[in-house]
Every structure is written in C-alpha cells, then in structure tokens.
C-alpha cells in the first residue's frame, strides 16, 4: 500500500529525490502514533484506513524538504510563502512582526538543530494527518506566541494572569452587604443557597460527556460562532461530526450531509437541558433542597449572574 502511494507521489514530483525509506519511515511514525493513541490494538483495516486518509502529496513534499531537496523547497516556497505571509500579517500586530515570523518559521522548517550529526527539520514532525497548510497555520500561530512571549519576557505567565482566576471569581460572586441584623440572617441563608448553587453547577458540568463539555467551552469560553464550530465538524472523518449526527435520521440517508448551525444549536440546547436536570438533582439530593428552595437558588443565580442569550451568535452567522 505504501509502495503504491509512494509511486503515485513520485510520479507527480519526480525531481524531489525522496527515497522510499524516508517516506516509509515518515508514514510509519504517523501510524505508530495512531496505534499507541489507544490501549486496544487496532484492526489492520483501521491502520489501512488511517494511511489512506493521510495527505500523502503534502507529506511527500514535507519529507523532501526535511531532507533538504532544493527543488522541493523551491516548490514549497512558490506554493506556500505568500499564504504564510498573509496568515502572519493577519495574526501579527505589525508588518515587521509578520515578516519576522515568516522568516523564523522558514529557519525552523529548515532546522538549525543538529542531533547525532543530522539536521532536524521541523518538517519531520508533520505527519500528513492534517493538510500542510493547516499545519503551517499552526506553526505560524505558535511562532507568534513565542515571539510575543520573548518580547514580554519581563512579565511571567503567572503575572500576566494574576488579575484573573479565582480572585476574580470570588469577587464576582461576592454579594454586596445590605446592612442590619435582619439582613445578616438573610445573608447567611443567601450564602448557603449560593454555595449550593455553585457546587451544583460545577457537579452538573463535570457529569457531562467530554463532547458536551467541549461544545460548551467553545461556545461560552472561546466565544466561537455556531458556524465556526460547525465547520470543525465538516470533515466526514471528524469525531465531532459523528457526535453531532448521532441518532440523526438524516445521517443514515446522507452520511456526508452538511452540519448546520442549527444542529450545533440543538446540541447546545440539549446540553443545557442536561445541565439543568443534573443541577436540580444535585441540589435536591446532595443539598437536600426542595423545589421552592431550588427556585430560590435559580432566582439568586439570575440576580447575581448576568444572563446571555443562547441565540447571541445567530445574528452574526
């Protein structure tokens, strides 16, 4: 199988002088990672499917570049440099930074580190699982982060985040004092309900499926738009796609049908429903609260925490 793939790639790029063993080794590394990603041994057909899905043309170019083939480098430069520059300009704050990042990435791709007498090219870490362009976007992104950190090296990561986190969390959940003895009793009761509310919402979230957690985190923490989440699930091999289309009659009819924003919204709504159920159960069983007290918890939560609409991003799509 690998021999056939290699022959196809070589026919398309006969000047790259890629040796079969380099290519085989590279696919072997990717397959090795695939095999070790789970404790159970994969079926032979699973490994074949995995290899068949690799971006082998991109991998062939990367292998040639990793081994210093000038023709491959020239083609890479022709095909991807302007794209890299546009991505870097889009991400970087100034034109100088963008150019600096592209230059740094080129040097990194070529490789300046020599291990056991051999130069280590960044290209050798590309496995072909994603597109070369996608991988380059990731490399550019990381280079920009490194560049940013290097230019702010007087500020540690801890210092950069010291104004956020738990301290802010407590501050935001703190309740302004109303004053007076009556209000003090009221305050103790409120505190009890608030503690129960926070604990219950934490438990409810923790009980969710990892897919559901990821969806909620992308939507609420990363502020991703529904269409951006949908796009991540567009590839027919995406595990997210499988999950979003679970139990969907449309999937059976047309497994390659598009994932719509409405599908993502429906899953968000399902997740909210699940959280609500778990939240109520937690308050009822662990905190022994009745329906009326749960209603008070909800009321307090509404007062304390600003609500955001589920439909916030629909208008932007």
């Amino acid at each position, binding site marked *: 199988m690998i021999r056939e793939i290699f022959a196809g790639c070589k026919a398309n790029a006969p000047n790259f002088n890629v040796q079969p063993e380099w290519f085989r080794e590279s696919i072997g590394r990717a397959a090795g990672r*695939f095999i070790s*990603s*789970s404790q159970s041994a994969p079926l032979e057909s*699973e490994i074949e*499917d995995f290899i068949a899905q690799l971006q082998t043309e991109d991998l062939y170019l990367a292998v040639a570049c990793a*081994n*210093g*083939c*000038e*023709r491959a*480098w*020239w083609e890479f430069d*022709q*095909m*991807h440099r302007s*794209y890299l520059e*546009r991505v870097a300009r889009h991400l970087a704050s100034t034109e100088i930074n963008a150019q600096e990042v592209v230059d740094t990435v*080129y*040097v990194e791709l*070529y490789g*300046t580190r*020599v291990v056991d007498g051999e*130069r280590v090219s960044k290209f050798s870490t590309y*496995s072909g*699982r*994603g*597109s070369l*362009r*996608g991988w380059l*976007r*990731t490399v550019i*992104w990381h280079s920009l982060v490194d560049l940013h950190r290097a230019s702010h090296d007087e500020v540690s990561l801890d210092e*950069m*985040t010291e104004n*956020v986190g738990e301290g802010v*969390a407590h501050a935001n959940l703190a309740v302004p004092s109303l004053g007076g003895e009556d209000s003090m009793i009221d305050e103790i009761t409120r505190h009890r309900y608030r503690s129960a*509310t926070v604990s219950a*919402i*934490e438990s409810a*979230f923790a009980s969710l499926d990892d897919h559901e957690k*990821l969806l909620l*985190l992308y939507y*609420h*923490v990363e502020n991703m738009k529904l*269409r951006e*989440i949908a796009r991540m*699930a567009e*590839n027919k*091999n995406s*595990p997210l796609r*499988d999950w979003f289309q679970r139990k969907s009659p449309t999937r059976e009819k047309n497994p390659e049908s598009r994932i719509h924003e409405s599908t993502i919204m429906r899953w968000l709504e399902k997740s909210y429903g699940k959280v*609500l159920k778990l939240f109520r159960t937690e308050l009822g069983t662990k905190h022994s609260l009745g329906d009326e007290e749960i*209603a008070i918890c*909800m009321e307090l939560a*509404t007062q304390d*925490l*600003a*609500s*955001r*609409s589920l439909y916030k991003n629909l208008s932007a799509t």
Partner: protein
Amino acid sequence: MGQIDIRGEEMRVQGLLDRFLNLRFADEGVKGGSHLDEDSLTAFVEGNVGEREAGPVISHLVDCTYCLHVTSELAKLQAGFADEPVNAPVAESQPSRLSEILGGLMTKIFGTGDGVVFAHHESEEEAEEEEPKEDE
C-alpha cells in the same frame, strides 16, 4: 405551588453556566504539563482525528485551556483563510539556491549565517554535474 417553568429555568441555567465556565476556565492561564503538538492540533481542527484518537484529544482539550484556546483560534483562522487557492509553481522560473534563501534569513535574524549547517540532499546527478565546475 405552580408549575416549574422549564424553559425559563433553562435560560437561567444557561446564564449561570456561562458565568461559571468563564470564571472557572477562561482565566486559568497556561498550566504546566504537556500540550498537544502542532500535528495533532491541526488534525483535530481539520477534523482529521479518527475515532480512535478522538477520545484522548477531546479529554485533553476539556482539561487544558491553552490547547482549547489554540484549537479555537486555529478554527477561526481556518475559516478566515478557507478559500485561499494554493499557488501552482511557475514552471519557467528557476529555483534559487536554498542555502542563499536561508543564509539571507540567518543573517537577518541572527546577524550571521555562520554555524548553520546547510547540508542538503543532492541527487547523484546534481553532484556529478557540479564537480567538473569545481575542477575548472
């Protein structure tokens, strides 16, 4: 006691969840420990992580705010640059020497191109072609 307003409660729990997640996860900063490598990040964002690998990757993303953020940024970037065509190499133009391109970059970045190994693979034919020139 009146009926429970499920829809109203869902909206409330949504607001509560939103605030909780933002307080709990958004500002955790970069934790120590290992992160997903560029290859896995790219494969995940492009939807090329198969079912077998998906479990560990998704579990990691749920626990690691750094990788979660990187995948989110990369997904937005991917959407923004989705329609960019790949330039076909221009057949007429001549490849410039790799060592020249990189040598220029090294000088620009580090002030010198010294110390960088510019060994590169050459086919036997290329090596043979160049030898007589050196003799001349």
